[in-house]
């Protein structure tokens, strides 16, 4: 039998925690989580089988610093990390004066212990949710904290660049915590990207978003983890009364990835729009499970997922809309559509509606189809070659999510990423 995680890793985790100068409370979270991880099981997702990926077997936890890369975001307010190192960051004075916090996760543990103990894996995602969330807490080796105090409206976006390094042999165990207190507004953009080559690594990434009463949070993500990175990516949020939490996620990874996304609509009258675009190429497998649960009365939860599958790859979209008993006057809608560009590709779009309350509206649409021939013919009749025409039609198909992203240059980078991935997938 394999040794228990706790026996095998207790010393490594303890010394890593010490090397980071972590406060005792977090060292305890690590060790408790490590112990619990042994009993917890892997999260289960409809029609997504990833057991063989061995995401529950950690690699060595190591303190070596990653290399620097040329990836600094073009934004006034940003944080830029490579592995566990924060390469640079900036927060305008005006914002720090108002009490906005943007920092790496280790500094946050030391400098803001009350906030961290209050919010870190206590409200949204728990260390006890499943084996992988427990391992995230136990092996955490990078991450960031963004805090927007009550009443503060950020007019410019906050950008994050997180580089995962495959030039060394190391798991990327990353955690982002975003807290938007009551009556706030914030737009956050996250880039996850791999650099370097030569090693195969695992990534375990948890992002928590707390959108308190009357807050408006817009979360965009551009994910580009490499072929050599096998990933569990969990991004979830909760809402207070009349809060709005929107997600726009560009899932452009080249490796095998499980995406666990969604919102728990806790507060009355709160609203979430979760939009995902994904492209899979080569032989990669991407499974995306987006779940919105309506707990509060008069809550609105909409899921929109569009994906394109090329070559021998596999893409599965689950859309789960759950309205619990008592969430009267709520609305759960979802649409998942997949385009298959190759006969060897595999794709699935599974709508799952769980409705435990009568006085609600709900609906779903799902399809797996091929590229629209009329559109192809029209473009080609103007001289555009088949591959270019195909990319244009696909871009159109994905545009409902692209157009959701607030910044023009971010939309442009997503469009570029889509172009890159499609060109690669058309080879």
């Amino acid at each position, binding site marked *: 039998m394999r040794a228990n995680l706790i026996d095998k890793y207790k010393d490594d985790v303890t010394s890593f925690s010490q090397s980071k100068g972590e406060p005792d409370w977090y060292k305890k979270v690590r060790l408790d989580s490590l112990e619990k991880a042994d009993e917890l099981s892997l999260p289960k997702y409809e029609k997504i089988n990833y057991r063989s990926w061995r995401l529950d077997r950690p690699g060595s936890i190591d303190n070596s610093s990653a290399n620097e890369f040329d990836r600094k975001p073009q934004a006034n307010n940003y944080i830029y990390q490579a592995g566990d190192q924060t390469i640079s960051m900036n927060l305008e004075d005006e914002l720090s004066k108002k009490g906005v916090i943007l920092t790496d996760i280790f500094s946050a543990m030391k400098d803001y212990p009350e906030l961290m103990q209050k919010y870190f894996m206590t409200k949204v995602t728990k260390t006890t949710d499943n084996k992988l969330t427990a391992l995230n807490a136990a092996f955490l080796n990078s991450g960031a904290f963004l805090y927007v105090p009550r009443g503060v409206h950020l007019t410019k976006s906050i950008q994050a660049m997180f580089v995962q390094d495959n030039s060394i042999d190391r798991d990327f165990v990353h955690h982002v915590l975003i807290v938007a207190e009551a009556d706030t507004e914030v737009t956050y953009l996250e880039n996850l990207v791999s650099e370097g080559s030569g090693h195969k690594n695992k990534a375990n990434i948890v992002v928590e978003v707390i959108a308190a009463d009357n807050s408006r949070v817009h979360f965009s993500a551009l994910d580009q983890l490499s072929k050599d990175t096998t990933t569990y990516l969990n991004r979830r949020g909760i809402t207070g009364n009349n809060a709005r939490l929107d997600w726009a996620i560009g899932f452009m990874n080249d490796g095998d990835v499980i995406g666990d996304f969604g919102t728990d609509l806790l507060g009355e009258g709160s609203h979430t729009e979760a939009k995902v675009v994904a492209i899979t190429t080569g032989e990669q497998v991407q499974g995306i499970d987006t779940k919105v649960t309506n707990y509060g009365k008069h809550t609105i939860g909409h899921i929109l997922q569009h994906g394109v599958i090329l070559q021998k790859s596999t893409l599965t979209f689950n859309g789960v809309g759950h309205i619990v008993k008592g969430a009267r006057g709520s609305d759960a809608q979802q649409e998942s559509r997949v385009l298959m560009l190759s006969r060897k590709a595999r794709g699935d779009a599974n709508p799952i509606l769980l409705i435990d309350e009568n006085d609600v509206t709900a609906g779903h649409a799902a399809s797996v189809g091929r590229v629209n021939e009329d559109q192809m013919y029209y473009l080609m009749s103007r001289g555009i070659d088949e591959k270019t025409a195909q990319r244009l*039609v696909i871009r159109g198909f994905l*545009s*409902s999510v692209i157009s959701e992203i607030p910044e023009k240059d971010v939309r442009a980078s997503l469009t570029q990423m889509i172009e890159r991935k499609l060109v690669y997938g058309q080879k």
Partner: protein
Amino acid sequence: MSTLEIKDLHVSVTDDENGEGQEILKGVNLTMSTGEIHAIMGPNGTGKSTLSQAIMGNSAYKVTQGDILLDGKSILELPVDERARLGLFLAMQYPAEIPGVTNVEFMRAAINSRRDKDDQIPVMDFIKKLESKQDILDMTDEMSERYLNEGFSGGEKKRNEILQLLMIEPKFAILDEIDSGLDIDALKVVSRGVNSMRGDNFGSLIITHYQRLLNYIVPDQVHVMMDGRIVKSGGPELAKKLEDEGYAGLRDDLHLDVKLTDEI
């Protein structure tokens, strides 16, 4: 000078329901050169759009006999995009809508597809050209920035087809009912656009039901199509005669055994 020759063209479509081929064009002959404007008229369902799609290379239309030659070379084996790059253009009766791709981006891609990879059209040149063509058609930047045909009104789609024609500058343009659904002002604008292309290096095949369009774009030749064949050709006066007498009169004059859709 370029020529487009249609020789004894037979075209079938496959019925979606029973999978059987049905012959629509039954031997069409037509020759045109750049510098000329030809018009095709004919009752509903006689194969005018089928002819235009077969020339362009729509794979739903199978050529079972005959040939299509551009400058003496058969183009039957060429896919639609290659035919387009050789100089053919089809303004479609029902243009597709493509969300997420702007008109501007699309037209640039179309122009660049005709140029070398390392000789793509400079942005300023493109914009200048676009503005001058928009002016001819009374169009604004706003429309060019919109997604390709998405949410365009019927008339806007037609105008947009002509804008593409002016931007791409093909050798031969087939215009399939470019006048249907246009108000009288738009009809004049669209005609102005087509006329601006007239010259030694441009030829056009105009499919229409209405003689009125031919007052604005005066054709060199008019052809009448019935039941998959061209049954009569003549000058612009033929269109006027048809307008007065209808297709039944012409059919009876020619002693054709053809049933017209609207006959009881």
